[in-house]
């Protein structure tokens, strides 16, 4: 038989049983659409997180106090005391030629009050470089002055939510506030950049790092953000940071240096795996659709037994009959998956029209995988009915026994 005739014959057989074929096609379409839609959800989440991280700058290093690896040996109870990461450690980091800027961070919670209103917020102590390192900008006034970081100064920069909570619509720049038991003057307001890395940058007050340390009576830093000179210098900068701190901490390797790439890579892997898992679960629905194809094809074979007998009497070989029925299953799966993928693209387009912050994004592999799985299911589950048809005995098939 010619392949064109096989396809034509299969199509005629499918359209002859319209409702049955359409319903099966629908099942495959929904399965394919589920695979594509769910993976677009995962991919959208991945992109969202990556974008959030890139906002932090791509040659960022984060230095945390404490080691994240244990080397075995004696338990740390015996003599080994965790050392604070101090402001002096942070300033020493600037000695490395691969380091451009350093923003030490001290963090605490304290009530901020002005004109009889009070709000408990995060107080972030840092230096002038913080603005650059975090790619932030000031909406009005100015950021912390660059001066001696070790000097406490009564200046504060507030986020927009905090400013509105304390002063309403009036400009807060120049006003005085009380943070804990100390008095500060507001010198600037941050532009709203929403939520970044879990910090709500709109609802905090930023003060000089020395002021924060005095406020919380804690010389230890929460972490140090380091801006390296270029992406190539990233690894050498990390090495320098470890060396500098080790020298200052009497040979103890007691900080953890995280690169932006490491965080990005981890999130990328986690969310990538999550997307695959979700797509895999959706693919199960395609397998179910495949079983439906098998069911429909088996019904079709038993209804068309006499027809198969006739084809054999007219000289059809086993493989001709097999090809006809397999092609039917394949066409069902193929048309279904094409419809499903189109449906999914349409759905994603519609959702993205109505969503601002978060966008669904279809990874290229998703429609391919959906199509392949659907076609494979069609073939695998079409095989049994097709074999059954091709092995029918023509004499019994013709007499309808």
């Amino acid at each position, binding site marked *: *038989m*010619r392949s064109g005739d096989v396809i034509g014959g299969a199509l005629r057989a499918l359209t002859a049983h319209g409702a049955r074929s359409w319903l099966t096609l629908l099942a495959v379409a929904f399965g394919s659409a589920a695979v594509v839609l769910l993976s677009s959800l995962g991919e959208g989440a991945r992109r969202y997180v990556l974008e959030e991280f890139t906002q932090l700058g791509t040659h960022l290093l984060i230095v945390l106090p404490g080691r994240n690896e244990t080397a075995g040996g004696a338990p740390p109870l015996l003599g080994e005391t965790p050392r604070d990461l101090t402001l002096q450690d942070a300033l020493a980091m600037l000695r490395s030629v691969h380091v451009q800027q350093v923003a030490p961070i001290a963090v605490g919670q304290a009530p901020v009050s002005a004109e009889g209103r009070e709000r408990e917020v995060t107080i972030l102590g840092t230096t002038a470089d913080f603005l650059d390192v975090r790619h932030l900008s000031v909406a009005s006034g100015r950021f912390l002055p660059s001066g001696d970081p070790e000097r406490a100064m009564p200046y504060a920069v507030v986020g927009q939510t905090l400013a509105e909570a304390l002063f309403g619509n009036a400009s807060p720049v120049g006003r005085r506030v009380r943070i804990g038991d100390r008095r500060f003057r507001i010198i600037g307001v941050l532009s709203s950049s929403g939520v970044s890395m879990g910090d709500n940058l709109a609802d905090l007050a930023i003060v000089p790092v020395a002021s924060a340390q005095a406020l919380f009576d804690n010389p230890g830093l929460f972490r140090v953000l380091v801006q390296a000179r270029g992406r190539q210098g990233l690894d050498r900068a990390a090495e320098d940071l470890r060396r500098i701190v080790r020298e200052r901490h009497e040979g103890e390797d007691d900080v953890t240096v995280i690169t932006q790439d490491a965080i990005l890579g981890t999130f990328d892997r986690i969310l990538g795996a999550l997307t695959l898992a979700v797509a895999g679960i959706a693919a199960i629905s395609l397998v179910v659709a495949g079983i439906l194809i098998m069911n429909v094809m088996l019904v079709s074979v038993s209804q068309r037994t006499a*027809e198969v007998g006739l*084809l*054999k009497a*007219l*000289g059809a*070989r*086993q493989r001709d009959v097999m090809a006809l029925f397999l092609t039917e299953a394949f066409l069902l799966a193929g048309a279904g998956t094409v419809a499903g993928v189109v449906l999914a693209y349409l759905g994603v387009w519609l959702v993205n029209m109505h969503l601002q912050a978060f966008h669904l994004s279809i990874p290229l592999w998703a429609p391919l995988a959906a199509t392949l799985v659907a076609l494979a299911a069609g073939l695998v589950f079409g095989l049994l009915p097709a074999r059954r048809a091709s092995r029918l005995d023509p004499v019994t098939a*013709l007499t309808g026994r």
Partner: protein
Amino acid sequence: MIELAGIERTFRVGDEVVHALRAVDLSLADGEYAAVMGPSGSGKSTLLNILGLLDRPDAGSYRLDGIETTTLPEERRARLRRERIGFVFQAFHLIPRLSAFENVELPLVLAGVAPRVRRERVRQSLASVGLTPRAAHRPDQLSGGQRQRVAIARATVMAPGLILADEPTGNLDRASGEEVVEALEALNRQGMTLVVVTHDPALGDRARRRVQMDDGAVLAD
């Protein structure tokens, strides 16, 4: 040329073994017109199925045009059916979703003949049974006699040497039956070997040769 020698065919029905054919010897020359007659259960349909290569005998030899068919693989038997044998069934066996034209075209499609060649041959076949104006009709839009004539056109479109007809007039009224028999006899006059299985004596009497069967054996020839 058909030569059957010592053909045996048994079926198991439950615990019983039924001898459908016992030691059947039969030879038919090219262009012969034979009627196989007998009561139901006499084995005449089984004989026809074996002649048509739809069924294999348990023992014996069947040579079709000098080819020993009983030992051929299924693939080769399918090819012989396609090229040398045309079937006409009592129940017509037309595919309901296909037009008369497409039903006649079916053997050519299965043989992989090019569409352009097919069209011409189907047209000739339909014309020879007088159904050219009905080519686009589906079977349910045709009368019984017309349906059987479509089936005859289908049986002859590959120009086979042998036509096997199983009770071809069994589902038809007298007038339509007459038309169908005449169409079959016309083919025989063109040189095709015609074997008709029937229990209708009027139809059997028209054949030049009558094979009388009973209980799986040939009684008279």
